[in-house]
């Protein structure tokens, strides 16, 4: 009989307030296989772990059941604990009596009974657990970063500067992301382009970074250390190896379109470079709007191109890359003004979102940094800024706080005042959230020095009246309704994940939350990892955040990748499904359900053979095997059936 040690954690009072630990110990102490039972306030703490180690050594335990939190949280912790005491780490099992018991039930009797059942079932599993050794796998020391905004750029640079190769994939023709569109940044008011463009250039010149702009990830296979990624390189209509970015074509192209980079305020051509500082300095043809592509007439760009780069080739190309780690840094978008009917539904030209106002403020923007309103180019003298537009509104829009709007709105009001000295900015806010280094001081300065009027309350409605926008709001501090006839209104609309993130996360097999933001492996302890090994997160794709937070998280993700790459070999979970050659008849049913082609029928030997490296351990084949020849390590039929018995009160 195996000697199993059962260790019950109180988790402070998280478990012990609901589960009667003493009663549980009493019920379990004579359970078959239990050689020792003990409780402790914090089993995951150092003394707790020492206690487990000591008992393994003193009593010669060959199985351990830790009754505590979810294995997602501390399975690894306790595996390392038992390993340090000389026990095989796969003989350690966790019984989740916190998340799935003490936290979800209030009645102590009921919760205690359920906890006992859970623990019994896990003891049953532990009794039949076998010693397993991780399978060693080679590692490709090259990373792929998806998304080249400031998050992706920072991650790529950090990894590359550590000496590893990086492929940086970006959907748009240029890297830079949303940060390239910003005017100045809070709270220092240094120019966004001045701090970002040198980094963009560094990326493009870095010998370890391969840049793939105007490209999208279309398929991902493999696993940590050994991913295969298929990238679509969208057709640009010209040969980028020949193009030198002189821009003559964009000057001569007769077709004008609203510029996405300038949020539709400025113009671009059908052959264009998103902005003058674009990296790489290359142009692309917008096939949908190019006159030549639509009607076969024009072709001016081809005529004027001094290096003959234009070929109008519409074929997308696909490349496959092998990488060891993937960082998802796909960024954000802002909630569209078009979808907010009470604020004009996008029909009022002088009601714009925050990103559009950034372009109006930007020295490289369509007005050269002069604040002029879109409808008639007039300088607005009364300007209203609304915070929490679509954020914190579970009834109509999004329940969460978009985090950056308070600060950027204060910045907008301040920058406006710096440009238009005789103008008056007003800010409607619900709560001013200025947690950050120098942020509160920045907010105070806006009120004190720049005389920004802060109004505590929401705006119910906006409408056009002559050439004014009437703002109907409230100040809940004076309990007065407020009406402002403004020249322009800026909406701090909510931060939402960028388009296409759902499709990408399906490819990457990572989780998203209900709003489409990427889910981290643990909100506090593993904030830059996804639940899929080898896939990391950075930036606003995970949740709204400002530039300093984005950059620190990006560096964190990069360091996780470097930590991974520092391993000689990777360890693959040995929870695989093997073949009992004595029983297997080679029927091949298991090969059909395997999603990884890890199982192959050997017709000569009439056997199925398993490639252990490819097996990810889902167990679909074990359930399909008609003879019981395919058994999953430490999830055998015997174990599962014993667990069922124990739960239903018939075990032991």
């Amino acid at each position: 009989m195996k000697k199993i040690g059962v260790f019950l954690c109180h988790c402070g009072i998280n478990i012990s307030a609901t589960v009667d630990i003493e009663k549980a110990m009493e019920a379990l102490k004579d359970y078959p296989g239990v050689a020792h039972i003990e409780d402790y306030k914090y089993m995951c703490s150092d003394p707790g772990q020492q206690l487990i180690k000591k008992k393994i050594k003193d009593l010669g335990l060959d199985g351990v059941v830790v009754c505590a939190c979810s294995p997602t949280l501390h399975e690894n912790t306790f595996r390392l604990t038992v390993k340090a005491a000389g026990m095989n780490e796969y003989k350690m099992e966790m019984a989740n009596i916190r998340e799935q018991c003490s936290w979800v039930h209030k009645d102590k009797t009921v919760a205690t009974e359920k906890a006992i059942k859970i623990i019994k079932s896990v003891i049953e599993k532990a009794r039949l657990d076998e010693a397993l050794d991780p399978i060693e796998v080679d590692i490709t020391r090259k990373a792929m970063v998806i998304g080249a905004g400031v998050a992706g750029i920072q991650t790529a640079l950090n990894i590359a500067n550590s000496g590893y190769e990086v492929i940086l994939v970006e959907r748009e023709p240029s890297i830079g992301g949303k940060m390239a569109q910003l005017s100045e940044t809070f709270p220092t008011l240094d120019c966004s382009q001045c701090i970002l463009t040198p980094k963009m250039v560094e990326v493009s010149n870095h010998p370890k970074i391969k840049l793939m702009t105007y490209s999208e990830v279309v398929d991902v296979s493999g696993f940590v250390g050994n991913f295969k990624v298929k990238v679509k390189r969208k057709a640009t209509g010209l040969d980028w190896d020949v193009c030198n970015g002189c821009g003559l074509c964009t000057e001569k192209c007769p077709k004008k379109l609203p510029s996405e980079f300038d949020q539709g305020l400025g113009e671009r051509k059908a052959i264009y470079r998103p902005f003058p500082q674009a990296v790489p300095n290359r142009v692309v043809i917008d096939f949908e709007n190019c006159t030549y592509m639509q009607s076969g007439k024009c072709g001016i760009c081809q005529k004027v191109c001094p290096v003959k780069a234009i070929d109008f080739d519409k074929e997308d190309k696909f490349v496959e890359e092998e990488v060891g780690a993937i960082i998802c840094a796909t960024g954000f978008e802002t909630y569209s003004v078009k979808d907010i009917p009470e604020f004009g539904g996008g029909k009022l030209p002088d009601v714009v979102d925050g990103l559009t106002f950034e372009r109006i403020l930007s020295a490289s923007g369509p007005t050269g940094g002069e604040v002029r309103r879109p409808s008639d180019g007039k300088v607005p003298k009364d300007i209203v800024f609304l915070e929490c537009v679509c954020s914190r509104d579970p009834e109509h829009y999004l329940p969460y706080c978009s985090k950056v709007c308070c600060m950027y709105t204060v910045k907008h009001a301040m920058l406006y005042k710096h440009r238009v000295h005789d103008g008056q900015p007003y800010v409607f806010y619900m709560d001013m959230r200025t947690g950050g280094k120098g942020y509160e001081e920045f907010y105070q300065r806006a009120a004190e020095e720049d005389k920004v009027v802060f109004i505590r309350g929401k705006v119910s409605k906006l409408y056009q009246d002559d050439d004014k926008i009437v703002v109907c709001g409230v100040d809940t501090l004076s309990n007065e309704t407020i009406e402002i006839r403004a020249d322009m209104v800026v909406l701090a609309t909510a931060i939402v994940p960028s388009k296409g993130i759902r499709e990408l996360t399906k490819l990457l097999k990572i989780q998203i939350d209900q709003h489409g933001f990427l889910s981290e492996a643990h909100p506090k302890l593993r904030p830059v990892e996804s639940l899929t090994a080898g896939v990391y997160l950075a930036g606003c794709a995970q949740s709204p955040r400002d530039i300093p937070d984005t950059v620190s998280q990006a560096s964190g993700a990069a360091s996780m990748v470097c930590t991974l790459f520092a391993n000689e070999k990777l360890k693959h979970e040995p929870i695989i499904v093997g073949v009992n050659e004595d029983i297997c008849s080679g029927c091949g049913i298991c090969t059909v359900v395997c999603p990884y082609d890890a199982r192959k029928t050997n017709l000569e030997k009439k056997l199925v053979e398993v490639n252990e490296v490819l097996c990810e351990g889902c167990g679909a084949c074990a359930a399909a095997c008609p003879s019981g020849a395919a058994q999953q390590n430490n999830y055998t039929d015997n174990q599962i059936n014993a667990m069922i018995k124990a739960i239903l009160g018939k075990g032991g």
Partner: protein
Amino acid sequence: MEISYYPGCTLKTKAINFETSALALLEKLDVKAIELKDWNCCGVMFSQSQDNLMKQLAPIRTLIRAKESGRDRLLTLCSMCYNTLKRSALFIQENEDKRDKINDFMDLEETEYFGNEIEVVNILTLLDEIDKDKLKASIVKDAKDLKVATYYGCLLTRPKEVAIDNVEDPQIMENLLEAAGCKPVYFPFKTECCASFQVVSRKDIARERTRKIVDSARKNGAEMILLACPLCEYNLDKLQKELHEEDSTFETLPVLYVTQLLAILAGVDPEINDYSKHYIDPRPVLERKGLL
């Protein structure tokens, strides 16, 4: 198409023009509206209280009548009837215990009502359902330079559960009028409340609301206000007249039920309208546009 029709109190008196024009228009569009037999008051204004179930009896009894008619849809012209009937039906559909209690109160009724048997349809929704090409084909008068403000008030678009269209920016009337060849103007006050029943005890509030609403419509170039609620019609029409009498610089705009204009455009004799019911005579504008 046949549909049961519930008139409600005001449609037979003050708002007779709404009924006459709507029924005439529907006839042009091959819709037969059959008035319910033995109908009673809709209850007037849905009771928002969770425990005052007596207030739900009148609307539910009306829905019982509709159920007994054998037709599964009930047309209302008045927006208040629409709102009350629809919300009451929803209320008992969502509160099973309250539904049972309400039916207990009405044990003399032969029919029981559960909440989802009858679809309450507002005239605007019904008109919107009709193929726009058919509507276009029925139009015989040209009103392409007539600029109109479409006014919805509160009960057609609030609360969200019974709204006939987008709560903040309904377009259903605009679409109908565009199909009929008129030009709806930008009108940010189209869902702003006219102060409703407060006209009885706080006329001052209702007057100020009327002033704001009419000012906005006029400023945006409207030549008339079109609506679909007898109470809004009274407030905007009567109170404009009072405002004008007080201050002759206040310019008035005629107020019509949307069906009145559509019926005229569809070739219904304009004389079926009882113009004496209007406080501001719409005939000068209609004449100017060649619609009489």
